[in-house]
């Protein structure tokens, strides 16, 4: 009984999401908003490509984004790994002192 209710809910959510996602992706590609392999002129990325070397001194533009332009995101990312280690160690701790 419980499972069937869950299945029905699941099927409904599943089909709604299917329609949504397919629509949005088709829009992106065929609506010429962001067709695959041919993104429109992009200010943020072209700025980074042309200025990364001078501003950060790194030849690798991706690294310059990761550690300089979006360095704070990377701090968050490192924090998440730190959180996961803390969480895993916490969960597998010895219970008695």
């Amino acid at each position: 009984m419980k499972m069937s209710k869950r299945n029905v809910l699941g099927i409904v959510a599943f089909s709604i999401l299917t329609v949504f996602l397919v629509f949005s992706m088709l829009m992106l590609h065929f609506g010429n908003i962001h067709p695959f392999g041919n993104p429109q002129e992009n200010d943020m990325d072209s700025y980074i490509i042309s200025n990364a070397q001078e501003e950060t001194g790194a030849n690798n533009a991706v690294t310059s984004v990761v550690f300089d332009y979006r360095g704070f995101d990377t701090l968050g990312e490192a924090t998440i790994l730190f959180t996961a280690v803390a969480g895993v160690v916490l969960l597998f701790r010895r219970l008695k002192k």
Partner: protein
Amino acid sequence: MISFGIPYLAVVGLILIGLFALVFKKNLIKMVIGITIIESGVNLFLITLGYREGSIAPIYTSSPGGIMSLPVPQALTLTSIVIGVAVLALMLSLVIHIYRHYGTLNVNKIAEGEK
């Protein structure tokens, strides 16, 4: 228009496979796998957004020249992958604990065990 947006449809396919596993599979490990498949779909989507036809990697070291693919989506994907690893580690350790307590990974049996 040569690709007909197939990468985007692959993204939808991956997300739907993941959701299917998440919603209809009863094994906890399979649910976790479902989440990682959704995550792969989203990562593929992010990296797809940054691709330009005929472009090279955005690295200047001995580069052959030419247009470069967009660096920001690549950086975002990198972040997202590491986040995925962290979430996966924690989910799996919780699954291990659930198995210790209930002796099963079946969702239905765990729900019964509650009563």
